[in-house]
């Protein structure tokens, strides 16, 4: 493993510790430390991915190690952006460990460069991959916000306010930031699917080929479309929206990983060991 990648993991780990300490002790400087450590990790991570891109001349999603690493990078980046914009500090308690977990898994996988030919140099493909990853990262955060919402709502409804009641922000803030995550995620997902279709057309001459990955991506997209539609028409919010965000992300995970391992399709190369 490269030293730079080790540094990335160390930063993410320290950030996780910072956020967990924040969860317990509620001191603002802990949260800030966690945030800056994550940002530092993210910068190193960006450099690492950029270096890999530069060295191999292809977008680094050629094996499972690279794919997971990029997923972790996207979650970290999207979280930093959301945190900067919405200030939902407590979400770091979900995001930082998730990023660390994903990157540590990536680090434990063999990192053997796989030849993919010119496949990964197409601009449409790079746009497709980046958009999908950012979208999925935002949906992961939506899932996190949903989980926190359920915890907080349970504390209020059951009237047994325990550990989480004072540590979590208001239901309103959790709900609205989860919604913002889903809007962002859905937009990027849509963009990613469109660029993917265009790429498919340019390579295989067909937009859609009923590949399992395509089918499940379609299902994921429809699910979030339905969720947003319900919110806009009848005001689906709160508990139900939170549960849907969690279910939606489970489907995202299946589309991302499950399809590659359980079903076969033309995305298999990204998760080769």
């Amino acid at each position, binding site marked *: 493993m490269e030293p730079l990648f080790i540094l990335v993991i160390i930063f993410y780990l320290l950030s996780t510790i910072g956020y967990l300490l924040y969860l317990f002790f509620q001191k603002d400087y802990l949260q800030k430390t966690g945030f800056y450590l994550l940002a530092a990790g993210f910068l190193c991570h960006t450099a690492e991915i950029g270096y890999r891109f530069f060295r191999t001349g292809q977008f680094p999603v050629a094996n499972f190690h690279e794919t997971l690493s990029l997923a972790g990078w996207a979650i970290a980046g999207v979280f930093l952006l959301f945190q900067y914009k919405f200030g939902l500090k407590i979400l770091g308690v979900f995001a930082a460990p998730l990023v660390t977990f994903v990157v540590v898994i990536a680090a434990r996988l063999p990192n053997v460069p796989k030849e993919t030919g010119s496949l990964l140099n197409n601009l449409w493909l790079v746009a497709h991959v980046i958009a999908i990853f950012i979208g999925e990262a935002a949906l992961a955060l939506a899932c996190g916000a949903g989980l926190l919402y359920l915890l907080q709502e349970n504390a209020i*409804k059951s009237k047994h306010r325990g550990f989480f009641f004072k540590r979590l922000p208001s239901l*309103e*803030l959790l709900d609205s930031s989860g919604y913002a995550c889903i809007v962002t995620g859905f937009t990027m997902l849509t963009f990613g699917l469109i660029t993917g279709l265009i790429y498919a057309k340019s390579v295989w001459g067909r937009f859609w080929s009923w590949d399992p990955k395509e089918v499940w991506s379609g299902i994921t997209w429809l699910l979030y479309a339905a969720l947003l539609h319900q919110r806009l028409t009848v*005001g689906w*919010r*709160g508990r139900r929206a939170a549960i849907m965000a969690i279910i939606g992300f489970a489907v995202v995970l299946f589309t991302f990983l499950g399809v590659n391992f359980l079903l076969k399709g033309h995305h298999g190369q990204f998760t080769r060991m």
Partner: protein
Amino acid sequence: MTSMLDIVLLGVNHKTAPVALRECLAITKDETSAALKAFQDLASIREVMLFSTCNRVEVLMVAEDKAGAVDTVKSFLSQLKQLPVSEFEKSLYIHEGDDAVRHVFRVAASLDSMVVGEPQILGQIKEAYQMATRTKTSGVLLNKLLHRTFFVAKRVRTETGIGDRAVSISYAAVELGRKIFGTFEGKKVLLIGAGEMAELAVEHLIRNRTGDILVANRTFENGMDLAKKFNGHAIRFEEIKDMLEQVDIIISSTGSPDYVVTRDHVKGIIRRRRNRPLFFIDIAVPRDIDPEINRLTNSYVYDIDDLKGIIDENLEDRHKEAIKGERIVDEAVISFRQWYDNLDVMPTIVELRRKIEDIANGELKRTQQTLGHLSADDLKAINRMTNVMVNKILHDPTLLLKSNGRHQDKSVYLDVIRKLFKLDE
């Protein structure tokens, strides 16, 4: 000798005396200033301040003859309040020295309050202190002690969570609302019925900048009066059902034997509200709001027992935080003691220096008169020599007194030095 001066505090509080007795002993502002003036003329009491709140009456003083001062205050109180000493003597606590200092710190930091962490007490002590400075009954010791007290109280408040959590029904309701809505801006409040607690809750909400206030009362006129008070609108009791679609926070406090708002009322409007959350605060007994509503989506019902439960939890938290506060107080007592120990050393050092300097200067003057032939330069040299001698003689005794030995050792040295140089005459 100054080291005999000590801080003494006596008083009664909610723990030692029932309210009936505290009422009898309570001292008004006018009485306080009269009392301070009366104490001023007494030789036994050097400095004094007096504070009286609904939970305590305390006299804090600096006295030479502690027992005498305590008796004086007792008989004064007895006279002022027309109450035989025996009536309140058993409820009286008397603290001296460090214990008195600790007590003052604890009271000001609200560690000794009936509701631990309540913020009013500090203001009341500040007021009492101002009264003492105005009548000039506070001196070096009380000034220092009170400034330390304000500092300690502030530290306890900022460094512990002693005052963080709501401990009244209305505050607890607002705290909960904040966890649901985040901000109250633009949120509509409906008050059903009337009552002190309910109205207090509405006032707290208004202070947090809620939107419109609606008031529903069985008697429309009463509702109108209340609405005017809150700058809101009155609605008819029958309109409550329809209004549920618009309002966000409902505070109910009626004498109705049945539920005023039922599950069916709310179930019907959730969709029309586009699932915006509804928060019911039910202060009435018997309850006004159907508890089943709590099971509907995005609807939250808290009744009086739930709110009391929160307050109990919060009080428990405050008591936990109070332990941290006690630690801060302990530190402050030790540091005050150090200052105080040095205080009785300083005058002795100053007096000792003055005595030696007086001797030296006196002899110098006499010598100059007899030795008229000395030049100005010679005189200067002799002057300088004398000064150096005084300093060198005083150097070691001063160091000894200032050293951080135990207080008892020091008072022995102080005693010896004062006797050796006859400083007390």
